[in-house]
């Protein structure tokens, strides 16, 4: 099982993702430069956080045209697992792999904190190690995390269980008071219709060690690992 961590000019949480997967979970991980066009040999792709192209124009707007993104689109089309974290989430919406868009935070300021989020659908490849309704404490650090989508699309997403994480109170209550950035319906993370591409503003890779304040992020990363193990197992059986 091999993970690719994409590196765009201006990515800066590529290191965080690498460390969580490699140092903490002991997985095979490689950095992949944005000019690469080949993802063969990789089973999972992480689009990390940071400021690709300085977030100029809009976060993810320019990175979306990087050669590597063409490969990511093909990879996702074949059912490959792609997780976009923070800037990676913004990039996935810009590339059209996920619905909606991420606007400036409601208060217009960058926000670095650790916040509770509720798992809305534990029956996905990215949340399988969680329980429905489980509250995870995850770091956030973003200026543009205000998720927006039109009402019709949102209704479909809700119905299909595509909302996987919502900002909430420590006890799991979802209300406007515990919405750090103004996201519609407190949305913190979503998944595509096929279930193989996910995007989230919180940073699971930054919550992987007790020393750094908690390990709740491992629920997400382990889910991905389990899914890939399951796929490998299946592939070897037939």
């Amino acid at each position, binding site marked *: 099982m091999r993970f690719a961590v994409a590196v765009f*000019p*201006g990515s*800066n*949480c590529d*290191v*965080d993702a690498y*460390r*969580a997967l490699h140092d903490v979970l002991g997985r095979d991980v490689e950095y992949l430069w944005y000019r690469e066009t080949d993802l063969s040999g990789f089973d999972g792709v992480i689009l990390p*956080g*940071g*400021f690709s*192209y*300085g*977030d*100029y124009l809009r976060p993810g707007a320019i990175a979306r045209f990087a050669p590597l993104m063409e490969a990511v689109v093909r990879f996702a089309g074949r059912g490959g697992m792609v997780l976009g974290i923070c800037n990676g989430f913004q990039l996935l919406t810009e590339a059209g792999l996920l619905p909606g868009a991420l606007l400036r935070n409601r208060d217009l*300021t*960058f*926000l*670095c*904190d650790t916040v509770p989020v509720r798992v809305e659908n534990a029956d996905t490849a990215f949340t399988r190690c969680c329980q429905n309704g489980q509250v995870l404490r995850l*770091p956030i*650090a973003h*200026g543009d995390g205000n998720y927006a989508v039109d009402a019709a699309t949102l209704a479909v997403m809700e119905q299909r269980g595509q909302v996987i994480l919502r900002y909430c109170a420590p006890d799991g209550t979802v209300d406007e008071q515990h919405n750090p950035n103004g996201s519609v319906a407190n949305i913190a993370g979503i998944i595509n219709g096929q279930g193989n591409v996910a995007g989230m503003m919180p940073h699971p*890779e*930054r919550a*992987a*060690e007790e*020393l*750094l304040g908690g390990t709740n992020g491992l629920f997400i990363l382990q889910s991905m690992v389990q899914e890939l193990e399951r796929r490998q197992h299946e592939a070897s059986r037939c």
Partner: protein
Amino acid sequence: MKLPGAERTARVGLTDAEYARIVELVGREPGDLELDLFGVMWSEHCSYKTSRPLLRLFPTTGAAVLQGPGENAGIVDIGDGLAVVMKVESHNHPSAVEPYQGAATGSGGIIRDIFTMGARPVAMLDSLRFGDLGEARQRSLFRGVVKGIGDYDNCMGIPTVAGEVGFDDSYTGNCLVNAMCVGIIRHTDIKRGAATGVGNPVILVGATTGRDGMGGASFASVDLTAASQERKSAVQVGDPFLEKLLLEACLELFRTDAVVGIQDLGAAGLTSASCETAARGGMGIDLDVALVPRREDGMVPAEVMISESQERMLVIAHQGREEEVQCIFDKWGLNAAVIGRVTDDGMLTIRNGDVVVGQVPAKALAEQAPLRHPEAVRPAWQDDLLDLDVTRLQQQDDWTGTLTALLGTPTIASKEWVYRQYDSVVRTNTVIGPGSDAAVLRVDGTDHGIALTIDGPGRMCLLDPATGAAMAVAEAARNLVCSGAKPLALTDCLNFGNPEKPEVFWQFSQAVVGMSEACRKLRIPVIGGNVSFYNETGASAIVPTPVVGMVGVVEDLAHICRQGFGEPDSVVVLLGA
């Protein structure tokens, strides 16, 4: 026809005596371009001509010190073959004119100072001062500065882990924005800013050169007036994205052994970078301004030489390795232009194509500004300040009310509004972030950590500059010790008014004396620093504000301590005097 000396010198902000010294050093009357170079290099900001004699009082050596003051940043050993590189620098004047860009480029400059030494920057700290937050202008300065720092540091992917903010009316016309950067390096990877090896190429890398920041260095050495608010061409615009690429490209370049020396372009731009590297290497540099990649048309050689366009570095490489250097910067989409060569004549020679437009001894520019020894006089009002009879103060009955009022004053209140705008955890090494006595970071690949803090008790320095400055050192040391670290070294930023005023220079001298004594007693060497004078508007100077940034080593990350009561029923003990 040559202008008479007096007018010429006034234009570049030098005195007649300084002009005479230039004639002596150059061996003739300098040309206009040459005089411009002396104007910026001999400004207070670049030459430290007023502060240098006093700064010699600081203890700067110690078993752990690998690099003391004099380079782009200081370096101190933290064991395991690793070292910490650190420096603090002010960007007060630019921030007063344009808070967002001023603070952003302040971060950018100090970050370059760290990676120019070969280190990977791992943490940022900041020390800020503003006037009364009741005033709209002060709120907008505060907001702009914090956003400027946040946007730059966040985009760079360097966690901002600690800092301090204070408010006092004396900062109304002169906010203080001091930024500190800390990097980690292997001893064997340390780079220095010296040009050596005759014939070696001098390569300008990074951003293109424009008119922005024209004369910023001399700008930092004058009092702020309405006219300086109008000097809009001095506003530099930061591009953190470009700097992030520059950082990664430089670190990649260092992994080859093609680099002889490297220096960032800060105040006085290409002028300071070229004459300082030449002077440190005991060599000369011969460069051609026509080869400098530009973003504006019609720039004259002097403009190219003193432009303070951000995100540029000067690399001296081994001859024959030019292509390799080019290749790395190409990969990161950055310019790299060979603009000159190292020579053995000790001269900074500037060409514009085929024509030599200036030629002066590099050492004269970089190191031989005549020192100033202004008068220091204890202000008459100092006694009045100390003449407070506390027994005559009104007895307070409403303790709860007093406590709430105190906690509500901006200087004491929580600074969460500030540090929530900073990514304090990127790179996943932050064990203790903002909100405690000191920040603690894990050192990659070891079970040690480092602790960082920045402190400056301004009000104390007004009452007694020597004691106040000593208290800055002591407070920083206590913050580290409380977090479980052993203090190792400090870097300082001395923010004062106009040193030509005897009272201000008295404050400055006292502060240096006090700080030196504290450093000696606590055995904490000073490995670098920065002096910011002329923090005045109209007649009033800021209160003297020496700021201390300190690093300590945490032997075992299992034994660190956070601020705040951890659990109920803990025993509370008061230690100390």
